[in-house]
Structures are given as C-alpha cells and as structure tokens.
C-alpha cells in the first residue's frame, strides 16, 4: 500500500477515464455496461482512498462505498436485463443499431 493519496487518485482517474472512453467508444452494449462498472469502481476507489487518508471521513467513506456497490449491483441487474430484452428484439448487441427512436 502506497503512502501517497495522489497515487490512488491518479489510478482512479485513469480507471474513470478508461471507463468513460469505453462507454463512448465501444458499440457493444455489454462492453458499455462493463465500462460503467469501471467508472463506478473508480469512484469507489477515490472514496475509499479519501477515507483511509482523512481520519474524519473514515467511517463515512466505507458507508458511501457500500451504498455505491449496492446501487452498482442493482444498476447492473437492470441494465443487463434491458440489454437482453433488446437483444431478443433486435438480434444485435450493437447500440448504434438501436436507432428506431430517431426519425
């Protein structure tokens, strides 16, 4: 474990950026959901890092991280269900072919 807060923040920033890039660039719906998980976990890492280095935030950070994990689980469930439903309809996981709402 590094003794510097900055290294954690840099790591989580990198993770968040990778997640964002993946969400915007990948066309596969499943990959996009995975990118979302990546972003959520980057945020979680930030929170936990702050909790570990800042004594007053110690307990709060753990609680918030747990809540984020719970929400992420729920989000992943619903998101996957939607993706599967769309997949059954469209026979494709590619989001740029989900364009029936334009025009």
């Amino acid at each position, binding site marked *: 474990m590094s003794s510097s807060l900055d290294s954690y923040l840099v790591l989580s920033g990198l993770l968040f950026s990778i997640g*964002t890039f993946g*969400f*915007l660039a990948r*066309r596969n719906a499943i990959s*996009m959901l995975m990118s979302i998980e990546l972003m959520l976990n980057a945020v979680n890492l930030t929170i936990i890092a702050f909790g570990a280095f800042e004594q007053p935030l110690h307990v709060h950070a753990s609680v918030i991280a747990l809540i984020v994990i719970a929400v992420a689980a729920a989000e992943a469930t619903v998101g996957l269900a939607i993706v599967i439903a769309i997949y059954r309809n469209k026979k494709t996981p590619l*989001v*740029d072919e*989900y*364009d*029936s*709402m*334009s*025009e």
Partner: protein
Amino acid sequence: MTALLPLIPILPLGGFVLTGLLGRRYPDDAHRIAVWAVVASWVVASIVAVMALLHASPFGTGGAGITLWTWIPANGFANGFNASMGLFVDPLTACLLIVVTTIGMLVHVYSIGYMAHDPGRWRFFAYLNLFMFSMLTLVLADNFLLVFAGWELVGLCSYLLIGFWYPRRSAAVAAKKAFLVNRVGDMGFALGIMAIWTQLGTLNMQAVFARFGSVPHEWQIAIALLIFCGAVGKSAQFPLHVWLPDAMEGPTPVSALIHAATMVNAGVYLVARCNPIFGAAPEVMVVVAAIGIFTAILAASIAFTQTDIKRVLAYSTLSQLGYMFASLGVGAWTAAIFHLMSHGFFKGLLFLDSGSVIHSVDGEQDMRKMGGLARKIPITYATMLVGSIAIAGVPPLAGFFSKDEILGRAFKNGFLWVWAIGFVVAGMTAFYMFRLMGMTFWGPSHVDPEVEHHIHESPRSMTGPLVLLAIPAALLGLAIGFPPETGLLHQWLAPVFASTIAASGHTEAAYNFFGIDGALAIGTTALVAVAIVLAWRFFGVEIPALGLRAQPRPDQVRALSARQGLSLLYKGSFNKWWFDDINNKLFVEWGGRVAAAAFWFDRTIVDGTVNGIGTVTAGAGMRLRRVQTGRVQNYALGIALGLIVMAAGYLYLAVR
C-alpha cells in the same frame, strides 16, 4: 286581466312556429294557421286595449303589467345587471296595440289573395307572423332591454321580408341596405340603454321615468339623444331615411304593414313612450322637431317627381313620419300618436291599394304606364281616393284632424318655423297624392296593350281589407279626434303625457274654433284645396259624380319642370337630392378604400406577424430535431462533454 297579455304576442309566435315547420308540407293551406293566429291575437289585444283606454281596472290611468319571469337574474353579473321578462299596458300601448293588430290582421287577410300564386307563401306568412310577434313584444315590453329585443327582431323581419324575393338582386341589396342603415340607429339606442343602466341601475321603464329627474342634465341630454338616434334609424328620418324607399322591393303587403303602418312607427312610439326622458331634455326636443320637419319637407319634395307608385308612397311615409317627430318635438305628444294612428290606417290602406293596382296591371309599378284605371278597378279606386283625401288633409277625414292638431300645437307652442314648414308640406302632400291619383286612375290609359285587356279587380280577400281600412281612414278623425284637443284620444292619453306637459310649461289653451285654431285650420285647408286643384290641372281628374273632369297636361308639366331655375329643383327631386349618390361615394367608395387598407394591414401586418412566428418556430424545430439522433452514445457524449466543461470551469475558478 293582465294574464291575457302574454297571449297577444305568443299567438303569432305559435303561428310562426307552426307555419314555419308545417308550411312547406302544406303549401296551399299555409296561410290558415298564420291568419287565424293573428285574428285571435287581435281579439285579445282589442279586449285589452279597450279596457286600458277606458282606464278600467286593473289598468287604471297608470297602466298595469305582468312579470312573466326573471330574464337575467341580478346575481349573474358583478354589477347586478338584471332584467325581467315583463309586459306592460297603458293607454299609449293600447293605441299601438289597436293599430298593430288591426292593420296586421287586415294585411294577413289581404296577403291570402296577393300572395296566392307565390310558391314561397308559407315562408311569407311565417315571416309575417314572426313580425307580428316582434312588433307586439316591442310595444308591450316593460323594460328597455325587451324593447331592444323586439326592436332588433322587427329589424330582422323587415330584412327577411324586404328580401323575400331574394333571387332578384335589387331586393337582396335593398334588404341589406335596410339592415345596415338600421344598425347605425340601433347602435345609438343600445348605447342609450347602457347609459340608462349606468345612471339609474335599472332598465324598467316606469322606474326609469320615475327617477329620471335625478340624472345629471348632461346625461339626460345624452340619453335622450341616443334614444332618438335609434328612433331616427327605425323610423327612417334624415339622415338615415335612405333605406325606406328601397324597402319597397319587398312584397306590397309588407310595405303596407311594416314600412308604413307599424315598424316605422316604432321610433315615434319609443320617443312618445320616453316622454319623461325627452321632457327633461328640452334641447333634444328641438333637435327632434328640426329633424322631423326637415325630413317632412325633404321627403315631400322627392315624392313630387317619383314615377314608381310605391316609391311615392314611401316618400310620403317618410314625410308623414317627419310630421310625427315634429309633433313630438314641439311637445304635442297626443297629436303625434293621433297622427301615428290615422297615418297607420290611411297609409296602410294606400299601400294595399297600390298593391291591388300593381296586381291588376301585371306587376307594373311605373305610374307612367298606368292611367285610366278608375273604371276598371272601381273598389281599389274608391278606397284609394278615400285614402288620398285622408292623407291630403281634407276635412273631415282622419288626416285633417291629426295634421291640423300638429300644426296648431306647433304654432301655439311657439315653434313658428315648424308650423311654417309643416304648412307648406301639407300643401305638397295634397299635390303629390293627387298627382299619383291622376297618373294612375285618371286620364288616358298608358297601360301596355298586352296587359290592357286583362286588367281585373282583385279578389275579395284583397278588396275586403281595403274597404275595412277605408272606414277608419275616413272616420277615425271624427271618432277619436273630435272635438280637436279634447276628443276621445286626448282623454285616453291624457294620463300618459300629463306630467311631461305640465313640466314643459306649454299651456294647454282650449281649442278655439273662432280664434287662432280655426284660422290655422282654414288656412291649411285652403292651401290643400289649392294644391289639389293644381294637381288636377296638371295631372287630370275624373269624378263624374261631382262633375269634375279635366284632361292631364303632360306638356305643361314638362314645360314647367324644364324652366330655368325649376329644372335644377326638378332634377334634385327626381334624383332624391342625391342622397344615395352621396352615401355611395362616402361609405361605399371611400369607406371601401378604408376597408381595403384595413384588410391589407390585417393580411400583411397582423397575419404576417402571427404566421411569421409560426414559420420561424416550425423551421427551428425542423433543424433542431436532428440533435435528437436516438443513439445512446451521442447523448452520453453530450453528458461527458458537459461534465468536462463543468469540471474545467470549477477547476478554473478554484485555481484562480
């Protein structure tokens, strides 16, 4: 007794509804319901009128009414505006009831024969019944709002009946003209009613009259002027007189009923009914007298040269209505109602006669194509002669008494100018009436030879009403107007006008046979006699029973009308003093230009603005909808960019 009142208007209303609904299916019997409805209404109205005229209970001298229901409840409007559906009868109403229902009934009977061959006769009778309902509502109403409703309804009926033969363009145009010109006056009347409401907070006539003294004087003048404005429109006084002659495009019974005997009298009735209002505004009385007497001489001068038999009578009606207004203006209220009644009967008679003449010569209305009809249609001729003598003012027929009373009152109440003009008009009236008689009935025939051999007297349903109308035209004056100024009519109407006359300060001096009144009567009669003899000299006469016989002298008429100085007068009279041309120029042409400009402004500026906003919005929408691609990653990119911008902004602010 007052429970009978609603029956009077409701009977013709029922007739209208039934005739209107069933008439098309039974065209041959279309007149039956309508005629009987009016006869029944006449019976009820006669009973009511006689009771009211005799000041019998429950009418007494002040009249009595009945409130049927609350028309507009007071809690409906914030300012408590309210009106009741109420009918009211006093001696003045009774006089009008007699004129309206009697002439209305006779005209209905006459129409059976006159309209016998018209395919739309069921429509005609339905309209006539609707008119009777409207006119009776107007007369019986106890508040101004109901009067106004009746006022508009008679205007509507007038429109429908003038335009009865609507395929004929001139009829349709005349109907529209009458309606539009009437609107001008009605506007004033409506404003007057509003003014009454704002000043007194009630529209009930008796309440208004009782409290009118408390209104500020400027408002008294304004209200009187506005009400008179309505009367000017409906009674076709200068400058709104132009519609009445054109209204002759309607069937002749309509001209007799609406445009001679009843509706055009509504204005006179209204002013007489509102005598406490006008009595409180003596300035307006002078205006009334001036407009009345000016219309009288203006219309009489036009009647001199018209060649259409009905138009001569129409201008004569204008002139006589002018007399009535002059009479109201000088404070001779009873004389005005007297003239209204006698004029209703003899002018109704004259119009029905003219209809009979037109009927007999196959629809020809030009008097230059008549002549010598006296022997061929004797009943029409005899009754029309009675009517002409009556309107000319030959004693002892009805017109003499009523006209003499007006002139005498004008003279004695100090309106010498009214008297002087009225005196001249009396002579003119006699002249143009006997010009009409001469051109139509006497002298050589100018009838189309093809029509000539089947000239026939009208059927009995037409001649019957003529004879029945000739009786009051001849005897009404003696019956209710004699002795002058103390006759029956004056006794009947005295309570209606008593307080106004008392307040005006005109002394009701006793009628003096051997003084000023006798002298005035003799003077008028002499002038009338001269005028009649002159008319005989120019246009011929032929009454064998009296040994009168003179050939018409068309050469003299031509020479006289072409003489220097007179020719301009002749042209003016012939062209109705160019009023129609002035109106055409002023309102149709210039008004049309204003309307065209307004139309352009509306189309380009107003509509342009509205449409422009619409176009811009729609165009913007068309372009902006491309932003909504429906692809989730585009939106996500938007969110990410937004986030970056916000973060950058925050960092920028935090670092600085």
